[in-house]
């Protein structure tokens, strides 16, 4: 395996953009990444494109095609929330194994509005899925409401602690001009917002966002042709499908994504104590606390405690979701995993402006999907 560096990053603002098509949004992220990498478009040897909601065949060809087609393979992938991080892992694998010297990962999304359901389409066991939906089970925030209530009983977490996750991530997003929602809010604002699935309130759910992000990966030797200054090394790129036997397994305690996290730490030769900043999958407030445990930031049952102690805020021991996370930066589903990479890289370069975590050298990005699927990527400066 060759050493792989992150040569360039690009992002479109997150929000809603009725005047821009998905090709416009995607192109913006790609062009920014090319410029940042100092590489010419014709030198990209493979592209991995992800999107969740469009269901347009060969959408990657449409997006890259607005720049021009150069004959390279363009691979379209979908992996629920970890779609874009899956593109990153595929590009990483291809460069690390020597298949290509320079590869592009890009995700672009105009997420459908409203309450998301875990099941659509034909071809899956539609009778079983429809029976579940008719019974009212097809409601993703409900899964996290179940997790919250169980954690409240088992670990003594409080509704205020869950709300604090949303407050913290919004405080971070307030410092990120690319975030979907940037106005600070209070615990009362979060708890008094509309009830969706008791105890999940509206502001404890991530928004359905539009956006695009891109990353260019390159072998370290070849990267020297394009840049002379320091590089961020991709220390881990793990995609796996966690074991799932029961809806109860993994929704309240660390378990599902721990497998991917442990593999990523192992691959990087690093442990949770070596990590300076984390971007993790927080579509709902409960998710962030569960994932503190998956990523071994604390023991099972202690997530609420480390949050309340301020450890995961900017200025704390291990800042989490410094760009606002899914909850406030937003969740353009097919692009989110690459927004995490963009934020980690800005932090590692010392270019994160007002939200800069001083001296950050190691960053971890984590995405989870239903799924199940999980990605954990570790970057090292």
């Amino acid at each position, binding site marked *: 395996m060759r050493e792989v560096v992150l040569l360039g990053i690009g992002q479109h603002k997150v929000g809603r953009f009725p005047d821009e098509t998905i090709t416009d949004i995607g192109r913006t992220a790609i062009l920014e990444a090319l410029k940042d990498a100092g590489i010419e478009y014709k030198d990209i040897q493979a592209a991995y494109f992800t999107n969740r909601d469009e269901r347009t065949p060969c959408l990657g060809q449409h997006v890259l095609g607005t720049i021009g087609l150069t004959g390279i393979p363009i691979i379209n992938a979908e992996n629920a929330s970890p779609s874009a991080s899956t593109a990153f892992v595929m590009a990483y694998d291809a460069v690390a194994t020597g298949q290509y010297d320079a590869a592009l990962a890009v995700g672009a999304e105009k997420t459908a509005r409203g*309450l998301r359901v875990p099941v659509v389409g034909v071809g899956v066991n539609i009778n079983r899925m429809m029976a579940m*939906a008719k*019974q009212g*089970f*097809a*409601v993703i925030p409900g899964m996290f409401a*179940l997790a919250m209530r169980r954690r409240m009983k088992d670990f003594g977490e409080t509704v205020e602690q869950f709300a604090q996750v949303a407050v913290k991530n919004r405080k971070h997003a307030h410092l990120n001009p690319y975030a979907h929602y940037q106005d600070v809010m209070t615990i009362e604002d979060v708890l008094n917002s509309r009830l969706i699935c008791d105890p999940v309130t509206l502001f404890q759910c991530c928004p359905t966002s539009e956006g695009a992000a891109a990353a260019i990966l390159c072998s370290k030797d070849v990267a020297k042709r394009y840049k002379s200054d320091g590089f961020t090394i991709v220390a881990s790129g793990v995609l796996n499908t966690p074991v799932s036997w029961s809806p109860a397994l993994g929704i*309240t305690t660390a378990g599902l994504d721990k497998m991917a996290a442990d593999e990523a730490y192992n691959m990087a030769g690093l442990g949770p104590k070596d990590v300076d900043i984390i971007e993790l999958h927080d579509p709902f407030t409960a998710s962030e606390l569960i994932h503190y445990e998956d990523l071994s930031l604390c023991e099972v049952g202690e997530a609420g405690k480390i949050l309340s102690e301020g450890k995961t805020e900017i200025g704390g021991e291990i800042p989490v979701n410094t760009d606002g996370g899914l909850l406030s930066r937003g969740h353009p589903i097919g692009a989110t995993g690459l927004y995490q990479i963009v934020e980690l890289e800005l932090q590692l370069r010392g270019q994160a402006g007002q939200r800069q975590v001083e001296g950050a050298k190691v960053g971890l990005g984590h995405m989870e999907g239903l799924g199940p699927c999980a990605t954990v990527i570790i970057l090292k400066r």
Partner: protein
Amino acid sequence: MVEQGMKPIAEGLFTIPSLPGEQPRLIGSKCRNCGRVYFPKEVVCNACFQEDMEETLLSNRGKLYSFTIIHQKPMAYSGPMPYAMGLVSLPEGPTIMSLLTGCDFEKLELDMDVELVLEKIVEEDETVTYKFRPVQA
């Protein structure tokens, strides 16, 4: 309870009592190789990957692992709003998702004993499904 002419939401999920006093049962599958039990039924064991499953009837009592009251109507659901949904742990091993019925929402508590009933989802529709309700003390 179930009356004549009611139809199950899907085949193979539960038995419909035909005699007075008979209890409905959920239909699961059990791996003959490792013993893991599934609901709904699986064709291949997801734990040991063997295709050696037998149908098994599950207990009609379990414990409420967690619950939520849903206030925003999801796709394909046309029953009353808001409604209670929960996870029920059965003694055979599986923890399953179920609608909850037969009590005020305020009376629901984690780890309480719950029992299986068959009920309509929508009053005007003859389709029935399985639900769990608190066991009367």
